[in-house]
């Protein structure tokens, strides 16, 4: 099962400019178009070999779409294309203020189960985390455009922290919903 020999990067594959800002509508339209062409269902009555090739290409298009579709994955991919390794990104120093903020948010989240009316507090917290993530996305976009990769990488790490927190908040939300 060899991976398709595909030299284009995901942005080229989708005919999109190499930048963080993304036209979501265009991405989706291209995605549908590529899958219309490459999905294994289009090759169901052909030989097993062709079907295998189609599975590989279709999987690649799915992978590319999933990467470009999510802001954090897209940002990390841009850094990877710019030559930064995962280790380099993770090694970016974090400023103390951000870490303290993180700890505070986490404490709020952990005390959620003890509250009488956790729903509204949780909603508020989720909105706060979402806002923070958008701030760092802007930060990333500006730094990346200015080729300031260290700042861009540091924004990425912050997004990673916050996304993780958001996932935990959503998990608590779903636990609460299941209890109702």
């Amino acid at each position: 099962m060899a991976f398709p020999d595909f030299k284009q990067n995901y942005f080229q594959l989708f005919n999109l400019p190499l930048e963080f800002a993304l036209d979501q509508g265009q991405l989706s339209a291209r995605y549908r178009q590529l899958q219309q062409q490459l999905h294994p269902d289009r090759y169901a009555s052909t030989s097993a070999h062709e079907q295998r090739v189609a599975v590989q290409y279709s999987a690649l298009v799915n992978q590319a779409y999933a990467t470009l579709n999510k802001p954090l994955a897209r940002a990390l991919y841009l850094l990877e294309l710019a030559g930064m390794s995962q280790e380099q990104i993770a090694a970016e120093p974090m400023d103390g203020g951000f870490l303290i903020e993180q700890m505070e948010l986490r404490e709020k989240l952990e005390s959620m189960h003890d509250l009488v009316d956790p729903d509204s507090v949780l909603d508020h917290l989720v909105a706060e985390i979402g806002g923070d993530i958008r701030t760092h996305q802007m930060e990333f976009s500006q730094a990346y455009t200015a080729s300031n990769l260290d700042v861009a990488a540091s924004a990425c790490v912050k997004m990673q922290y916050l996304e993780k927190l958001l996932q935990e908040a959503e998990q608590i939300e779903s636990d609460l919903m299941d209890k109702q």
Partner: protein
Amino acid sequence: MALLQIAEPGQSPVPHQVKLAVGIDLGTTNSLVATVRGGRAAVLPDEQGAPMLPSVVNYSDPSAAVVGRTAQAMSSEHPADTLISVKRFMGRGREDANEDAARAHYQLADDAAGMVRFVTAAGPVSPVEASAEILRVLHQRAIDTLGDELQGAVITVPAYFDESQRQATKDAATLAGLKVLRLLNEPTAAAVAYGLDSAEQGVIAVYDLGGGTFDISILRLHQGVFEVLATGGDTALGGDDFDAAVADWVLQESGSQALQPGLYRTLQARARAAKEQLSDAESVSISLDGLVDSGAAVVLTRAGFESLIQPLVKQTLRACRRCLRDAQLDTDVDNVVMVGGSTRIPLVREAVAEFFSRDPLLDIDPDQVVAVGAAIQADILVGNRPEGDLLLLDVIPLSLGLETMGGLVEKIIPRNTTIPVTRAQEFTTFKDGQTALVVHIVQGERELVADSRSLARFELRGIPPMVAGAARIQVTFQVDADGLLNVSAREAATGVQSAVTVKPSFGLNDEQISAMLQASFSHAEQDKQARQLAEQRLEAQQLLEGLEIALAADGDALLAPDECARLHQKMSLVREQMSGEDVNDLRIQTEQLGQASESFAARRMDKSIREALSGVSLEALDDGVSE
């Protein structure tokens, strides 16, 4: 449209002819077969005009299994020999199935491999074999009605089926002599049936509550593409559980103890009838005649019934909530589609309507909608609709992960990832000179291996001895469009390749399947040979035709002269072999030609991507932007 068959209009060498293909809904309670004829999809009834085949198989006569209504009628007299709701046991381990088996009063055979086998008068029977009997009847019905052998079938499975349950379904089809074009998720099939009829755009929720399984899927339909955004459910929750709740209530109410298996089956049938009547009636009387000494009757009101099933309905709504969250919608769903016989229950309809704040769509018979959708997909897959650009993009329902140190699960492909999907993961050795590595694949959302479903455990052997941590073993996981997993492994430093076949921990291996096939074909060994040869010739024919067109179109542009010559040489070898009688030789030659043409196919695929993108009109793009 085919990769190697991209031809200009009018250039096609094969005259257009309709190919026979069917959609099969292999249900817990009933199974159906449907096909598209004259542009319309419809269910094929049996000789008596009944569209539904009860999914019941009786093994009282060791020489011939009985399927359908006749088998159903034998259920009370021969409870152990009459298998109902076998779908609930598909692909499950013996330990896991004990509780369900006890409730249904089946005896399970001891099995060293941990597989489920029912003890019957005809010997031990696996759920796969019983399902194959059902499929065989539907296959024959389709051949009789349509007048010829089929090109293939799309078989539906609950969206929430895991890898082993899917593999078991495919194995059953193979046993029944069916070529599986695709395993299709039931809610997706239902969406297709509705989507095509109404040309809907927007977000659709499909609530599918059948006899034994529950699925919820959220899909987005846009310009002929059905994109499944999220799916969820429970593969052991359905109408059977409602019947059991009623039956248990009756026993409690009448103060009786547990019944004999045969009598319990009778009570279950009466409970089901009561449930069905309560969709219209306000109350029903359930007779205990012949079941308990007092022989009286108990009265069940609709309100009483609703309070019995309320917890189960609530359980389905919880799954809906999680699925909606997974779909990450910023709008409401536009339509709710109801599938499965259990959605006839008024309480279920009301609860779903309230949950989604939408009146559900009920235009298509909820028992038939899945088979109809599957038939449409089968029609597309065999190429009967060259103009039809309907495409289904489905997802995996459960995360795939690997066991790591300390019995923890590391997720490699999260749930609701669009398929097909390929992920590579790198491993290394932790001892000097280590030459083998065990990889354990699990499925599910839990963090501990102990809480997850074990899919497969395999050993990578032949790693060249190196110091600890020096070997780099890349394991590639691929989930195909049927939702089935393939794994391959490669040691990066030396290029040692090892192909791994993943067979579910509780599934049948290929030898077992061919042994079963052999047994079922033992009377017709020659038929089998002839069929294999015919199939192999078809495969060769397809490859040759495709290549000829492809070479005519792109051979000069994409191939060097010597590459071209090599392909032509291999093609003439296949052509020679096609007139021979040797299946194996033909298979090998075809295989070699296929391999030789793969890189050409890939180059054409690249070219068609470029064309797809450069051929985009501005209007089409604007359309996409304004969505």
